[in-house]
């Protein structure tokens, strides 16, 4: 499914969180959406998932305006939020069942898929425990499962690797490629740039609510004469000299001794 965003803006009083951005994501594409803290990434994702109403601009999903038919769009998207997002008094299995039922999936399918997701993520022994007893990584696995259980056409990942162990990260990266191969559109927000570089072909970099770069990673490296996405990002977002900053930081920590 295709995403078309035009002049998308979100204001809070005088503060502009997202400032008139426009882009398109093709079906089956994995788009990396990057930016420094407070750049407007999560606000963009919240608007694209129908959680937040834009101040201006339009969002079309497969040609349909999101604001005109939010339920149709929500039925077709999956979302892994950056924080929160679980009822911790439920067990892992119960939470996935609840989500499946909200999407009107058949009971047999929900049960099978929920158990299988838990098994694939190594949570089969914990599926009947309350989510409040899960570790951060385990909760993240449940969140990812809940975003995929209804077989969405578009998946929004906002820092999906948060708390996952190394093995789970490796599996997850392959899962993303597999989902894209199935024709699903992947919108991937992250600060872990080497993962983005390995998973995505194209990235959008946003800073102070505006798009400052949009294109294939290879093109961005070439035009900025940088060797890695991390260096591209540092150059485009005017990040301070890292080693100088680290020295100042260390001196501050040691102060008073």
């Amino acid at each position, binding site marked *: 499914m295709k995403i078309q965003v035009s002049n998308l803006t979100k204001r809070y009083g005088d503060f502009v969180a997202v400032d008139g951005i426009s882009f398109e994501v093709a079906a089956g594409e994995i788009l990396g959406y990057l930016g420094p803290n407070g750049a407007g990434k999560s606000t963009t994702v919240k608007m694209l998932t*129908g*959680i937040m109403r834009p101040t201006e601009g339009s969002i079309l999903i497969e040609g349909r305006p999101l604001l005109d038919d*939010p339920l149709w769009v929500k039925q077709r998207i999956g979302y892994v*939020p950056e924080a929160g997002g679980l*009822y911790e*008094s*439920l067990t892992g299995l*119960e939470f996935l069942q*609840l989500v499946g039922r909200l999407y009107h999936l058949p009971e047999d399918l929900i049960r099978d898929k929920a158990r299988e997701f838990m098994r694939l993520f190594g949570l089969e022994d914990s599926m009947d425990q*309350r989510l409040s007893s899960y570790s951060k990584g385990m909760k993240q696995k449940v969140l990812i499962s809940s975003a995929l259980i209804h077989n969405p056409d578009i998946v929004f990942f906002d820092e999906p690797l948060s708390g996952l162990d190394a093995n789970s990260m490796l599996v997850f990266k392959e899962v993303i490629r597999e989902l894209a191969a199935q024709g699903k559109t992947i919108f991937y927000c992250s600060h872990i740039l080497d993962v983005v570089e390995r998973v995505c072909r194209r990235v959008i970099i946003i800073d102070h609510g505006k798009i400052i770069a949009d294109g294939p990673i290879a093109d961005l490296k070439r035009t900025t004469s940088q060797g890695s996405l991390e260096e591209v990002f540092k150059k485009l977002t005017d990040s301070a000299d890292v080693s100088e900053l680290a020295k100042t930081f260390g001196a501050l920590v040691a102060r008073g001794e």
Partner: protein
Amino acid sequence: MRFEQFPSQATRQVGRWLSSWGVDADQYHWLLQASLRMDFRSRRALPGQMGSNRPRTALLKTGIFYSIISSLLSISLRAGSVGTFCFSAITFGYAMAMMALSILMEFGLVVISPDDFLILAHRPISSRTFFAVKCSNLLVYTLLLDFSLTLVPALVGWTFPDAPWQFPVVYLAVAALAGVFVAAVVAALYGLLLQRVNYERFKDLLAYCQILFSCVVFLGYQLFPRLVGRVRDFRVEDTPWLATVLPPAWFASLNEIGLGHFSRLGALMSAVAILSLCLLLPGLLRSVSLSYSDRIGEMVLAAVKRGAKHNHRRGRSFFAWLENASSLDPEERAMFGFLFRMLRRNRQLKLQLYPNFGIVIVLFLFGVLDHQNQGDPLAGGSLGIGTMFPLMAFLFAAMGFTAVLPYSDEYQGGWIFQSAPIARPERFLKAIKKALFLVLFVPLLLLNIILFSFFWPILHAIAMSLYGLLIGLATFQVALFGFRVIPFSLKPEKGAQTQRVALAFLMMIAYGIFMALPMLFRSRPMLFPVSAALLLATALILGWLNNRAYARAIRQLAFAAE
């Protein structure tokens, strides 16, 4: 059948019925089932699991407290030989006010829950379905509270000479309708506020509503003895025109009709009760529910951004001085500063704490209006508002403060106290006591002295106010024995607040002895300083003991998770 296996057929059936109003029946059923399971699941349901069943326990305790209070109320009404109409009007009025207070105080979290929004907003759930689930969840709480408030009166009412055999059934059925009415009114109030104000303002307005309702409830306690004498023999047709606009009178009339006591005014008021329900519920679903998700979303998400812009320059230097002057010990000063800032800035906490002042305001008004009961207890006056005021004000302040202390919507920050190398956790409790003293007790003491100095010699006003303060301190020290956590480190739990407030109402009865004590002071003036010294000593000893108990509990807290 266990409660957590809440009748699935019932929610399915209601879902089907609501589907004609655009509610998704399946989503309604599953979301409501999940909400109820989360709230009422027992610890034993999942062996070896971490987690809590606080809402269930809190509701159970509240139910017991409410049952005791409603028993006392209904038995005293029965002893006063009132008629069935008067009996049901007063008991319904009491039950409806208590339900509204409870819902406003905390079950509002059921209707407006930022957590729910963040979990469900991106799912394909319509505003109407979401709203219907929230209202139904609220209704379950309301009906449970309603049942605890009206069960005993239903049985006591059965003993009236003119009560037919069906009295308890009719009474409980009408009480349930009154509960639905209260829940619908509160949901409508929330819905209307949602459409008109932002989240911060919304919380402020709810706080004002709480204060207003605290006033109404407490006013009821004051008016009740005066009212019973005047309305003892009232039947429906004797209802003063002013009382006919009060919902408890409508439902009491409906009860009379159900009992077979017909009258023209009764039929009219019953029709109003039924009509209000018939209009209110569909009206809610039609108007409020349509933009419900959008409104909550805007509120929840905008609040995050707005909060960052807040500036708290006002009074900064005074509070900084106060914080530094509070203690030389850094741990104690840290906790004092933290408490002070939270109590000044966190709206959720203020929302829970402000209503205590509602009671003080009512008492103050009574103090001003009720001149004949303003006899100076230290100079021959009768037992009246003069002895009640200081006791009640400090009692409610202490109980209210202890009730809000463990909970906050910022509970996740509590880890910093557990990871910090705290040498003497008892210092935390000392800081808590100092904060209560400065935030609540000092203003209340001054308010007391100012009020009573209008009626009594200033020395008597000071003495009685100090007497109340000392009892409040002793009460607070007792209440703190139940406090075993870092302040504001627990997620707000449904029911916990109501449980505390219900306990405070119950304690008022036990406080009769302290109210009567000043009568002894006038014949033996030396008893006053002796009593004051005893109270102070009691408060100090209790304080020393609870400091030790608290320190022990906090030291063990770090290992509790294991």
